[in-house]
């Protein structure tokens, strides 16, 4: 099993490199270091958000509200910056992280304490959070000329050749690998999703693991809110609208199982990079941006078919909640 997972990541990695090579043969400039770094910077947000989603998926949940959290935390960060432009970046980072954690906790509490299916909860909160962006801003946009230079420059600052945003993604990946592979909390997240009943007997509070996953995912989405708004230089109600599907796609391509308990950080990163390369290569090939969604849809559908081989055990229902008393499934 372990070998299979390893070979899957390796296979996906090889496929990604092949894609990169093919595009580079046609367009040598594509593989220039500056373009590669630019592409990584462009994909950093997807990597960050996909890792948060992965935590939730591991515990048999799904988070559809992350892009709305990005929009709300981003708007609040931008409004804070507008109100106190001289305060610098630290309060902005703190507030966006805090907002994200709180929104994630709200999802998590509902899933943990009331045992509601996470899909229903986040379907509801994605609308509520998105609506709150409008309420917070009064429907107005915050444009880059209303943002302080510190707010805009922080994530663009070049450290050792790559941007601070890229470093955030790399740092998170490092933390994630340690957390999920070597820390009890990480192992418990896997256990809670892999077999909730067995995990409960082993003393793992499955509901609490879901709460932790949602809270962490919320915190990451909150930080990404500031990053997103700063990177694109605008905060408005529809920021990152529909991005949750790309995030889930990156996870699925990366081999994270929607049935919980299966997935690697490496896989998710490669999945995100795969989507990032496609996105950046399409304009070069001369396909209009309108083709991007169709092509990524095709790639996602292909990836899930490959993923699904033998994964779906016949008795397991996909939307089944881990902590639900197993009544009817006698």
């Amino acid at each position, binding site marked *: 099993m372990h070998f299979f997972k390893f070979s899957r990541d390796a296979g996906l990695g090889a496929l990604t490199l092949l894609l990169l090579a093919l595009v580079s043969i046609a367009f040598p400039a594509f593989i220039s270091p500056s373009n590669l770094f630019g592409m990584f910077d462009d994909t950093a947000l997807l990597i960050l958000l996909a890792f948060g989603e992965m935590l939730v998926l591991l515990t048999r949940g799904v988070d559809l509200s992350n892009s709305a959290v990005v929009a709300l935390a981003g708007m609040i960060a931008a409004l804070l910056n507008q109100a106190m432009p001289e305060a610098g970046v630290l309060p902005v980072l703190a507030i966006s992280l805090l907002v994200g954690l709180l929104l994630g906790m709200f999802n998590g509490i509902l899933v943990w304490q009331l045992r509601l*299916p996470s899909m229903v909860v986040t379907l*509801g909160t994605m609308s509520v959070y998105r609506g709150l962006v409008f*309420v917070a801003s009064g429907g107005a946009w915050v444009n880059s000329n209303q943002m302080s230079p510190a707010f805009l420059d922080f994530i663009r600052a070049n450290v050792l050749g790559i941007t601070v945003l890229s470093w955030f993604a790399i740092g998170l990946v490092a933390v994630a690998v340690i957390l999920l592979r070597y820390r009890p909390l990480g192992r418990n997240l896997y256990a809670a999703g892999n077999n909730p009943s067995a995990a409960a007997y082993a003393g793992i509070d499955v509901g609490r693991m879901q709460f932790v996953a949602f809270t962490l995912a919320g915190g990451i989405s909150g930080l990404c809110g500031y990053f997103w708004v700063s990177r694109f230089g605008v905060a408005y109600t529809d920021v990152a609208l529909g991005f949750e599907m790309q995030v889930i796609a990156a996870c*699925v391509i990366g081999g994270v199982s929607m049935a919980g308990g299966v997935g690697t950080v490496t896989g998710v990163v490669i999945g995100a990079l795969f989507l990032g390369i496609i996105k950046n290569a399409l304009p070069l090939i001369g396909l*209009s941006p309108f083709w991007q*969604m169709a092509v990524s849809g095709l790639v996602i559908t292909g990836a*899930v*078919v490959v993923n*699904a081989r033998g994964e*779906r055990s016949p008795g397991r229902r996909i939307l089944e909640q881990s902590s639900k008393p197993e009544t009817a499934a006698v």
Partner: protein
Amino acid sequence: MSDVPVTLPVAVMHKLRLRSFIRWEWLLVLVVIADFALNTFASPYFLDPWTLSDATFNFTEKAVVALPMAFLIIAGEIDISVAGIMALASVMMGLAAEAGAPLPVLLAIGLVTGLAAGCINGALVTTFNVPSIVATIGTMSLFRGSAYAILGDRVFKSYPHAFAYFGQGYVAGPVSFELVLFVLLAIVAGAVLHFTAPGRRVYAIGNNPVAAALSGVRVTNYRFLLFAVTGLAAGLASILLTSRLGSTRPSIADGWELDIITMVVLGGVAVEGGAGSIVGVVLAAVLMGLLTFGMGLLNVPGIVMKIVTGGLLIVVVAGPALVRRLRALPHRHRGGLG
């Protein structure tokens, strides 16, 4: 909070579930009446046959898709690609209309596109064993992406005059074609789900697919058929919506999948499958239509309505769970909430 799953006899659970769902539908009726009264109170224009008729357009198209979606969710599956199917079907009809196709051909193209898309979903879930939420997340991008790829930033609006009837026509007085169609479909759906053997099998599949298969239900065939019918319904809804708007953009029906699923869940269908009723879904559809229309009368911006529908979804699901939670407390050890 280290809960070890409690196992109750199936018969007991079934009884409990049935009872709670009968209560659920009465709760919905009450909320619908309350909202109706609120709308009447809020706007003097609400209690007019034509105003009420206008209000129905807020939910009929979505509700047409919500009916088969209820079957799917009861059977333990889900289809997130329905709005994508609607966009693709609309673009196909637009292409045909541009080429001068007559009305029957247009309708056939809308329905066949929906059916074909539904069959793709069905094949992914049955033949390729992909969990339906994953499969339809992929096809959602595929279908809507194809609509964007074909149409780009252009607009189709050269629909024949007679095409307008389906989304704008009235059967008698203020009773619209859309409403009549929805009522007929709801009756058929309710009859099939609640009074026929195939309907009972849908519940059986949702409750325990393995047991259902072992007792002779052709689970795979049912799953495929449900996805195909949902696709067909999305094609039909696309005809209605395209006809009402009189034009096609690739962003048509954007985000509707969430509204449709909200309708089904609000109607009391259990997301984990195995329970739910068509009456509940119809009530939820009417409720969402009245609610958005009422807020429209009060000039509430659309995005704020999203807070209300999203909040409503959470409240109606969390409310009973909270009550159950509090009721269960005295029987367990007191420290349960901590």
